[in-house]
């Protein structure tokens, strides 16, 4: 007789994977017949290279503040994973730029946000430290969203059924699996360095609210820039109802209930997604397997 489901590994050692993809022949709308869902996800290729490099900077600067060797090790693994996410999405962005999808205005806005507005602002001393911790708390909020999205993409067979590009699905699921793998790190750093509920709520609302606004801007920019789409092909709010029904994107309710979970006082990221599932995907991801082969060679 089989006993019930095996216990989840509590935590796994985080290590970056040296993945890469050849994007030649990738359609801009890589979910056939789904310009909205394709571009909603494509926003990541514009937003994340800058965004995740900023995570790396913020967490690298935080290392001296962390007074817990185990947590410091986890942050070191986290930084490398986020750095690889940034360069993987950058690869798609570069491919898009080379294939008549001009998004330079939007990318410039993103660079301005992460490179100027949210940099160290020339502060020093106590002010600099507080601003660093504020930004760590913002990342903890964003990491809840990325864990949610990672869990979603690992459990979205509708994308395969819709005939989405296999390489893009591998990139999204490799990234999603690593997001699930490291989902507790930013939160645990926040709890170690501050931990107050009020600041957690405040930073979550700011981070996810602002990111949502940037995301909407991104979909508009992409659909406008896509040379294969006409003037009438604009994103509409109701598109998300349709793609949610089809299973090619999460829906409004998923986003609301996800936020509700983070804002509850008893929240811990371990409840969002499954480490086993992430580990299982990474053991079969074509890009992760190729990375191992050339890592050992």
């Amino acid at each position: 007789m089989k006993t019930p489901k095996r216990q989840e590994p509590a935590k796994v050692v985080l290590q970056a994977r040296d993945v890469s993809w050849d994007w030649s022949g990738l359609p801009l709308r890589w979910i056939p017949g789904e310009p909205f869902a394709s571009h909603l996800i494509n926003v990541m290729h514009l937003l994340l290279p800058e965004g995740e490099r900023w995570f790396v900077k913020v967490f690298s600067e935080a290392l001296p503040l962390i007074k817990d060797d185990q947590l410091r090790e986890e942050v070191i693994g986290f930084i490398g994973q986020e750095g690889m996410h940034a360069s993987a999405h950058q690869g798609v962005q570069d491919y898009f730029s080379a294939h008549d999808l001009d998004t330079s205005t939007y990318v410039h806005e993103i660079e301005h946000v992460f490179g100027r507005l949210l940099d160290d602002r020339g502060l020093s001393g106590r002010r600099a430290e507080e601003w660093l911790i504020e930004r760590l708390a913002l990342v903890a909020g964003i990491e809840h969203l990325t864990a949610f999205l990672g869990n979603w993409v690992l459990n979205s067979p509708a994308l395969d059924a819709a005939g989405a590009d296999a390489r893009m699905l591998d990139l999204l699921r490799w990234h999603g699996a690593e997001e699930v793998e490291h989902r507790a790190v930013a939160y645990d750093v926040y709890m170690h360095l501050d931990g107050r509920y009020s600041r957690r709520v405040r930073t979550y609302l700011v981070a996810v609210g602002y990111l949502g606004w940037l995301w909407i801007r991104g979909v508009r920019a992409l659909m406008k820039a896509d040379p294969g789409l006409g003037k009438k092909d604009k994103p509409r709010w109701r598109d998300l109802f349709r793609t949610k029904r089809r299973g090619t994107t999460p829906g409004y309710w998923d986003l609301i209930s996800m936020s509700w979970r983070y804002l509850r006082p008893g929240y811990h990221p371990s409840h969002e997604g499954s480490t086993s599932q992430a580990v299982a995907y990474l053991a079969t991801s074509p890009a992760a397997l190729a990375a191992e082969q050339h890592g050992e060679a």
Partner: protein
Amino acid sequence: MSPAELVAVPDEPALGLAFRATARLVAVYERISAVSGRFRPEVVAVDRDLPAVVHSVRREADGVVGLELRPRDREHFPAWEPGCHLDLVLPSGAMRQYSLTGDPADLTSYRIAVRRIPGGGGGSIEAHGLAVGDAVVLRGPRNAFPFIEAPGYLFVAGGIGITPILPMIREAVARGDDWAFVYTGRSVTTMPFLAEVERLATEHPGRVYLRPDDLCGLPNAEDILAAAPPAATVYACGPPAMVDAIRAAVPSERVGSLHHERFSALPVRGGEPFTVRLHRSGRTVEVAGDETVLTALRREIPAIAYSCQQGFCGTCPVEVLAGTPIHRDRCLTDQQREHRLAVCVSRAEDELVLDL
């Protein structure tokens, strides 16, 4: 095109009104964070060291000792899962990592097994010198080899690689999973925990395959994988050549995926020692022939940022002010290499000056 146009930097595209408004909001927001920070609780340091004592020492095979470690300052060690390993800090300060091989349900002690590696940096030889009552410090446990749900398992161990595999097999047995186990080694006298493996073989006929090289010849991946139950996941631990051979043969008809322990830092071989000067602090650091620049720098700057330790993730590069670097990274462009160095893998011909 006139020369002026050639050198002109293209204007940055103008940012919309929305972003100019955000700039002001962020300035206000930063002030709020400063005020909020005044009431921030003190950061509490967390001590992760586990003081332990050697409770028993047992010879498990030629050149392998099993150590049972008990806590010195508490009743129970932290919980662990099959696949977890520990840092063992030896009396000399040398640190080595070993897989936990005992029973996760019994937290009054941890069990590890150590193979003597002559010339392996001395850690294993020192560990072999440990006697009952000796004090050591442990750190961890942590899991770089997670054991997860699957329809069936093929466990493969080579020699001392059996240490993380044994707790996995015990769990699979306890849960009634479908499993098989292939145990390889140079000869039976060098294969630890043979008595337990033989007991498993008697209690679970047809599931355990003992393959010492001196009797069965060198194992190949096809032979090993042939033992797998249908739709199995492989958990392998052993010599790199064995794991590589299995990796090359997976997925196969019977086997879906391979899980093995992942190590980040690879040993440094054939390196020359050199000196690194830190420009900002004015200090110097000696890099030994068998260590990376990063390892040496961490003695001086414990919180230095790095990650993959294999030269690809791009976290660790620092500015080079003088010296002749030997680049071994996979993350910097030729242009970046002119003034940056990935300290986790790259080295130098002679003295190096870094902007640290």
